[in-house]
């Protein structure tokens, strides 16, 4: 470290610690965060009411980057697009790669690029449905930004939340993110075609999920081979 860098680092450390330690600001930060969550929940309730009024089934799909959210969506749309009018809302930091992939299977898509935000919130969904005629849809899927932490703070007003985890993320992934599994209804363990080669303990993942939330439904799938996708559709009630 050079002579110049050291005082600069010390200055930044000091600045950060004084900012975090100021009591009046700390209370304000916590109160603001709580208010944001409260307002998000209120808006989510309103959204859910609208969906119920229009008799639309809605699902929020969350999971880590590369877990297979889009691959599963592709399979579901492939099987259901002739039966239902589907809208898929895709959240990503940038690009419309996911939306393009899903659009190929005859589902209508809307892409949200969140820029710096790490999850979708109810306000985003509200803005979209405000400008759509909800009579045009039977099922709405919301594919969240790839992340296992932030989405647990924001409900989106959907009927059910699915978490997609994959065998490549290791058997501890469920145990390490309890909050998200607490707020979810269905766990999809994807890429089971690779489980044997990777030596992932799937039973541990299932047990962990049940321990966090006893009522949770767990399904093991492979979006690549199509294994258990029909079972997943059955669980979704479609």
């Amino acid at each position: 470290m050079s002579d110049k860098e050291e005082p600069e680092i010390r200055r930044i450390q000091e600045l950060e610690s004084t900012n975090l330690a100021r009591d009046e600001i700390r209370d304000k930060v916590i109160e603001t965060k709580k208010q944001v969550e409260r307002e998000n929940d209120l808006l989510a309730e309103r959204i859910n009411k609208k969906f119920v009024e229009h008799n639309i089934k809605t699902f929020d799909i969350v999971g880590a980057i590369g877990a297979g959210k889009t691959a599963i969506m592709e399979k579901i749309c492939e099987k259901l697009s002739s039966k239902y009018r589907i809208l898929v809302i895709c959240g990503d930091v940038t690009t419309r790669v996911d939306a393009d992939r899903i659009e190929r299977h005859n589902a209508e898509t809307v892409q949200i690029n969140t820029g710096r935000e790490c999850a979708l919130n109810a306000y985003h969904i509200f803005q979209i449905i405000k400008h759509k005629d909800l009579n045009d849809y039977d099922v709405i899927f919301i594919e969240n930004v790839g992340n296992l932490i932030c989405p647990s703070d924001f409900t989106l007003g959907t009927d059910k939340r699915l978490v997609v985890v994959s065998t490549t993320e290791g058997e501890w992934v469920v145990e390490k993110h309890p909050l998200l599994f607490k707020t979810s209804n269905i766990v999809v363990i994807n890429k089971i075609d690779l489980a044997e080669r990777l030596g992932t303990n799937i039973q541990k993942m299932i047990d962990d999920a049940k321990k966090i939330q006893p009522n949770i439904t767990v399904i093991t799938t492979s979006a690549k081979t199509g294994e258990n996708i029909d079972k997943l559709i059955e669980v979704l009630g479609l």
Partner: protein
Amino acid sequence: MNETLEKIENLISETNINTEKLREIQINFMKKELKALHCVDKFLGDFPTFIEPVHLGIDVKIGDDVLLGPNVYIGDNCEIGDYCELVNTILFNNVSLGENFKLENCILVKESKLKFNNFTAFGCVLSGQTDSKENLKKISF
């Protein structure tokens, strides 16, 4: 520029704006044509949140924590301040907005410079080069 946009630009440049016709053309543009113009990779500044379709012209400067879309068209050389939220809105070339503007169903005439902060508007044509809300020209449609 797109043909329909030119039509809109001509309509709002008239002294007595035909609001009914304007509304009809605007709705049609948002519903049918904007999707084909979706383009969000040409911007300077912070990463905003986009809900498609959004069209950004060349050299558009965007502030912190901005939400654009759905249905937003922004012309070349526009400037958008921090915390703005634009929905169903058209900004023609060289428009600049201050901080914390919440606009829905609005059209901003080209070269407008709104150099003030905290402003909310719904369903109107805005124009002027001003630093106060009072001097802003506002026509509802």
